[in-house]
């Protein structure tokens, strides 16, 4: 593929480590150590994705993101040591597509890069031809006719039960289902203490669809109430 990814951070070791990781995945990596440098590289090279640290000398990450957004519509993942919710909201509203807090899991970062790039390149046109029997939710996409779930355009292998759970949750994005209800509607029988059974399936689905199954973005537990499929805005 050799897609071009720009990594920006004032910490050279981090830039180098991310570079090595992404090169192993087969990306071409460009490096910058402050915001100004990043702007220059973006202007000169065909960059497909940017990983940008927030706190940097000369021009900070968020300002750089705003400048880039003025001209380019490419995925930007913001990195920050700040993990407050307010920081995330600020970063995303400034034009970033994703937010990863330090210290991050390198595998997760790689997975996110892959996910963003795939949607940016190969799936860009899919949501133009909107179909009634297709449910889109962020990276996910469920085709009713095929009874198949796609993540970033790639089909996800699910068992029959898992598919029924995913269909139920995808059809009712944002709605919270108590474990009893999921059990009743999927297994179609009364359940006694269904939490364990439901949880096992949810964990398996997460491993297949989430970038970081430990911190799920889509399939969430609402503690003390039930489970839900988070409604995620379709980027790009």
């Amino acid at each position, binding site marked *: 593929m050799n897609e071009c990814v720009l990594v920006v951070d004032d910490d050279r*070791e981090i830039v180098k480590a991310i570079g090595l990781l992404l090169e192993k995945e087969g990306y071409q990596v460009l490096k910058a150590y402050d915001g100004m440098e990043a702007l220059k590289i973006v202007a000169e090279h065909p960059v497909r994705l940017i990983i940008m640290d927030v706190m940097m000398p000369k021009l900070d990450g968020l300002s750089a993101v705003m400048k880039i957004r003025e001209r380019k519509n490419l995925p930007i993942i913001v990195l920050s040591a700040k993990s407050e919710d307010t920081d995330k909201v600020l970063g995303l509203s400034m034009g970033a597509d994703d937010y990863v807090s330090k210290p991050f899991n390198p595998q997760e970062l790689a997975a996110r890069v892959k996910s963003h790039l795939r949607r940016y390149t190969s799936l860009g046109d899919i949501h133009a031809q909107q179909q009634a029997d297709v449910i889109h939710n962020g990276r996910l996409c469920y085709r009713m006719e095929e009874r198949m779930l796609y993540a970033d355009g790639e089909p996800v292998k699910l068992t029959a039960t898992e598919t029924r759970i995913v269909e139920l949750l995808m059809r009712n994005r944002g709605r919270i289902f108590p474990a009893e209800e999921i059990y009743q509607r999927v297994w179609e029988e009364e359940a006694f203490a269904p939490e364990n059974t439901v949880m096992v399936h949810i964990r398996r689905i997460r491993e297949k669809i989430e970038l970081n199954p430990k911190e799920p973005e889509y399939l969430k537990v609402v*503690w003390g109430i039930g489970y839900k499929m988070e409604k995620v805005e379709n980027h790009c």
Partner: protein
Amino acid sequence: MDTKWRKLRIIVSFTVFFVGMTLLLANFLSMVSLIGSNPDRLKSRIGADYQEQSDFRQYMSSRLEELLGVATGGKGWNNYGVVYSDDGITYYYDRYYDGYYGDEWRWYSWAEATEAQEVERAFDEELSVEVVEGEADISKEEWDEIQREYGIPDDTLDAIRGGEYGTKRNVIGDQKEALEAYMKEYARDKNLRYAVIYQGKLLYTNMEQLEPKVGEELQNPDFQGYLPAEEEYNFCMWFNEKGDGKVRISKDGEDLDVYGDGVYTEDSLWYVPGYTNFSVDESTKDAVIFIAAAKHPKLYITGNYSESGTVSNWGGLYQMQQRQTYRRERYLAVKWKLGIALFLLFLAVLLRKDKRQADKAIGRFLGHIWLEPKCLLFAGIPLVFLFTGGKDLLQELIWIYEDGWYMGAEELGFYVGRLMTGSSFLTAAFWMVYLGVLDLRINKGNRKSLLGPVIGSMRTKELKLSVQKRMVERNSRVFVFAVLFGVFFTFLVYLTCSHFYWDPLRMVLLIFTVLWGICLIVAGVWNLRKNKELARDLGALSDQIGAIREGNLTERLILPEDADLQSAAENLNEIQQGMETALREQTKSERMKVELVANVSHDIKTPLTSIVSYVELLKQEEDLPEHVKEYVQILGEKSERLRTMVQDVFEVSKAASNQLPVNLERLDLGKLLRQTLADMNVQIMESGLAVRTRIPEAPVMIMADGQRLYRVFQNLIQNALKYSLSGSRVFLTLTDDGSVAVANIKNTSGVELDDNVDFTERFVRGDESRTDGGSGLGLSIARSFTEACGGTFKVELNADLFTVTVEFPKIS
């Protein structure tokens, strides 16, 4: 059965104590007087032989003297006359010096009567009569009749009533006649046998065998031989038997030592002539007297119906013996009663535990009685006693008051003493005090009182008022009472003064009183005004304190410069300012602390990112030797732990300074626990421990932040899994007691824990030497998050049983 027996014992113990104490007290004074008396005298007074008494010796001496007077025909044979009584009438014989009839002592008699018919009879016998005032059962009509019949002058009754008894003397005649009459009476008492010989001639005797010889010459007769055989006369007394003017006494056939060392002193037993310092004159030496006393005196009644009905020898030896018998019986009774009393009290001591129970029961019973009647009773019983037993005293007091005399301390002491020595008073007083003390002791603090509810309702009414109004009300009350008192007092003074003549001193006193009253009113008004101001300031002060409590730290209290509470207000203002400053400082320092932790954790996170990334790269290297791969594995684990720890420290510090954002929502705690357990199922399986749960199916709704609460239980379960004894069980229960939801996690600790450690402190771990495992923040985070959500978090350690309790108020 057991309780019944106990109850019986309690009742018996108190009854025993009550009877014992009452007996002791009732006989206490008798006992004291018995103990205090001379033992020899006591023995003679209560002994079986009445002749051992000093009364007897005195009686016999007097008889001897009397008979000596009779023998010599002298004037001293009787000082006060024989007093004998018949039913209802008492006869008196006496003599008086009659100047009209020459230098002669004349004899007369009179009677004291209480009944109308006796007054009649006394007049029949031509005796003068004293009607005992107040007791004579004689009406005006009856008296008028008597007066008519006997021709008594009108002024007689007044004279009689005036206390001049004996004004109408019934002169019996000359001395000889009087003597004959007297001796006639004398002879009646057969307990005392006598013979009087003068100048060898027998004058008088009441011994039947000797009576024929009256008036005959009798030389050295054997008097004892004439004594009637059917009666036993064991006591004999001879005077001048041998012409020496001495007395011989024999008792039960044995002569007694009459004179001792021959000199008469106060202590001598016999007051009879014959001592060296107690001799008789020559004419008396011509008399020979014999007196014998019966061993067992009897009551002799003579039916003197032709004259005055029956006459008895009431008085004399018979009565003396009766008195002694009575005394002995009383003495024995007292002894027995005291013995019984002491025995009962001893029993009461043995049963003291039960008695204490009885005391408590009685005390509680007394507690049910209103206080006021009790007080009245307490004051009233002595008063009642004063009115019954102390009637004399009061009458005396009234009389003294009416008469215008004042009672001296001595008299007062006498009457009060007489009151106090009454046994019944002592007993009553003891029980009153006993019950009083019992009541005070048992019902400490919770008195039932009639006035109590009234005062209570007044108090609650008062509590509703503000401080200033309360003060004003109290002050006004005192002021009103003071004014009323002043008015009343002035009126009283005016009344007193108006009743008497006006003199300058009284005028000055009255003026001063009025002036004093005016001063009182002026001072009262001024005080009232000042107090009103004080009350107003006090109200402002208390309002200000309330405002500070509400959190208003900026508004200051301004009082007038001359206010009593000015300095207090200033102090309060300073405290308020200090609090404001302190609060500002604290907020600032909290914020700085959080900022510091945030900065530090940020600074740690950046290098940590590199570490984590390069470890990941190292992991991906394929041609590493096995041991290096192992090192990389360890590096990976440790860096991961460091990552979570940094995050934990940040959150704990935020929670500790109350800056943790929480998103409270309605949730089912039971469901949350089940979800958490399901979520951690893998970890639980891997730990090899069994988790036993008891969570109700029904929803237990609380308000909390689900995400935070999940962390709480995740940490708690992780903690339990990590530190439990291998193979043991972890118990997780949720109970719902209506208003509170209580989640409980119990596990058996694998290592011995020190129960003085607060496990929720940051960086505290059960086993200090442990180097692997947790950060020491797990419980600290759990507590912080629980409290941030409005719950309570409690850790208990009982031996190896480690219990964590999380409580949340339930919502409907």
